[in-house]
């Protein structure tokens, strides 16, 4: 077994676009679920809207790339309102089912043949990179050291993504220590008490849904930046992986979702390299390499169960911050 190769294939994921994108989306979920107690199971839908808004703005309407990102944020805000106005008054588990259904509707609408002209149906969209790459300040060439060697586009995507992530984390940190953030946490702990103080709970929940949803859309954009937009990515499993990431790091924390995402992807990458390698040297005699790479998803499911049961506050969370109310 080539441990050097496995190690270098693994550490790349410390700053991969996927880790950054999932971190952004999970940060949005932290705003929804961790701070406000909204059980949003439709984050995949927000990500799909961000990614498709970006790609369609560029491909079908010829807009500049940065306008595409802004449109993604606007579209996710609209989606948050459509979702939130009727459902934010519902009980937590009802909200979960409505959001999961809404995200599936979004995915099916992007997959159907009906809007093929814009969405290219199940094949997805690609070739929208020119504008973003033209804006790249890094001169052509390959940079970096060891496993972190990318060309100018690879670095530009990563730097841009990390910048977005840092700004988003800063925003969350600032708003959650403001009086506004304390109201959100109050809603999470006891909605009726906050209402008794004269706060408009519905309006606060809606603001939380919009902000978290915008982070989800940005996550979708970052996921779309290096490669392509394919509808089959935005399935409900994506949302569930985001919950695994969020709960791993700690739901009501700023760094939890980010570290959770990095840990999640590094472990996934490590397993996807090491398990087939173990099969090839005969250390896992009862399975083939395809089964070995399926094994890690079984472990994700098991990990999600174990975290929720035994350490619901995550790596960074504080047990006093009750993230699971009622």
């Amino acid at each position, binding site marked *: 077994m080539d441990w050097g190769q496995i190690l270098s294939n693994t550490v790349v994921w410390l700053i991969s676009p996927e880790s950054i994108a999932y971190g952004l989306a999970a940060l949005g979920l932290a705003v929804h679920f961790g701070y406000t107690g909204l059980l949003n199971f439709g984050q995949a839908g927000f990500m799909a809207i961000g990614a498709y808004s970006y790609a369609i703005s560029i491909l079908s309407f010829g807009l500049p790339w940065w306008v595409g990102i802004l449109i993604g944020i606007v579209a996710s805000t609209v989606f948050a309102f459509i979702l939130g106005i009727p459902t934010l008054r519902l009980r937590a588990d*009802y909200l979960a*089912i409505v959001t999961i259904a809404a995200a*599936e509707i979004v995915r099916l609408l992007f*997959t159907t043949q009906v809007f093929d002209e814009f969405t290219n149906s199940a094949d997805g969209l690609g070739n929208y990179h020119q504008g973003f790459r033209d804006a790249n300040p890094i001169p052509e060439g390959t940079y970096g050291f060891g496993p972190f060697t990318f060309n100018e586009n690879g670095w530009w995507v990563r730097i841009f993504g990390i910048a977005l992530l840092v700004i988003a984390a800063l925003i969350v940190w600032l708003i959650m220590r403001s009086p506004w953030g304390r109201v959100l946490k109050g809603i999470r702990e006891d909605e009726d008490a906050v209402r008794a103080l004269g706060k408009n709970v519905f309006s606060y929940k809606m603001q939380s849904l919009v902000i978290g949803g915008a982070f989800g859309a940005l996550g979708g954009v970052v996921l779309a930046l290096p490669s392509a937009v394919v509808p089959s990515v935005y399935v409900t499993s994506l949302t569930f992986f985001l919950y695994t990431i969020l709960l791993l790091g700690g739901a009501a924390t700023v760094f939890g979702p980010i570290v959770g995402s990095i840990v999640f992807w590094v472990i996934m990458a490590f397993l996807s390299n090491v398990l087939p390698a173990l099969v090839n040297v005969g250390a896992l005699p009862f399975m083939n390499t395809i089964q070995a790479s399926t094994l890690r998803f079984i472990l994700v*499911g098991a990990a999600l169960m174990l975290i929720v049961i035994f350490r619901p506050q995550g790596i960074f969370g504080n047990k006093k911050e009750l993230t699971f109310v009622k």
Partner: protein
Amino acid sequence: MTALFAAAFAALALTSMSTASAVHADEVGTDEYDYIFSGNVKNDNVPLEDVKITVEGGGYTAEVVTDAEGQWKIGVPEKATYTVTLDESTLPAGVIVAEEGPEKEVEFGLTKNKSVNFFLGEGVRVTVSFADQLVERIVNGLNFGLMLALAAIGVSLVFGTTGLSNFAHSELVTFGALMALIFSGTAFLGWPIYVAIPIAVVLSGGLGYVLDLGLWRPLRKKGVGLVQLMIVSIGLSLALRYIYSFFFGGGTYQLPGSGGDNIELFGSVKLSVIDLVSMGISIVVLAAVAFWLLRTRIGKATRAISDNASLAAASGIDVDRVIRIVWILGSALAGLSGILWAYFRPGIKWDMGTGILLLIFAAVTLGGLGTAFGALVGSIIIGLLVEVSTLWIPSDLKYVGALVVLILVLLVRPQGILGRKERIG
């Protein structure tokens, strides 16, 4: 235009697969060029030979005529947008391109291959009347709805007795189908299907028992919150699903006898023997469950717990025992539903259950969370809605209708059709 959707099915997008197949499409320019359009011209599932297809764009033109299998392939020099035209005069008399017209603007997706399909239909002449189609869709919808009901009752009873929205229920559905496959599949044990089904149902019930004993009961004892339990069920769903994928791979399997011949019943309504048997089984089993709920001690106890768990416990009902029975029964019914659904789809796949999980939730919510009869009513409505709506909306959007209903019900009448208002917190 609704007539005879002789849908032209996607020729395989992967060249590797299509070259491996025994049928050779009539091919033009596929050797010179990397980018390939392909298609399969069929009318009412009969392949049409000698239909002329033209590809035009970027100064390049090519023509091809479909072979005896109705297949064609054209290679083009670059990844760009082309106009693909089907020459309607080469179609048999009375057949035209029903949707979008004979001309299509097509471009490549992320691969070098793109399948181009034309929806053919019987000219202006409508051979199947709208009423006949409606009846056929309704019969199919009833079949699907009864199947959903079998799965939904488990979700509803578990929710009623424990308050858990069980996201892993879809995996119990898949489990039943996979167990039936293991005992009856030709590549596996190959026993007769009427032996395999009871075994699969019993094993599904067993899985429910094991899950309750090993997971849900300890968590209830620990006093874990409902939202936490719901996320645990999501973790369980992911783990189980990929365990299936681990053992069965990504392929689709068929149970013996699926895709059998259709019998004409009345008008244009055709059903296979399996459809009829499946509907019969569903109705008998659902009637038995209804009897159990209404007339037996345990059934009454179940309803009492759904109504008010502490009151039921105070009046001497062994709540834990009833919940255990509910888990066993719910899982067994889900397993049976999975077997029937494997025939209805048709096919068994590791993630087949997730496809109907939201429909099950929609059915349960529509009928009224926690009420078993509500689940039945909701399931039949959802089944009918999904099937009948395909008369007006494209079939790849048929689940959207059901999901929209789910959302609307939660907004307008969150307690559902048969639910009572006080149950909603």
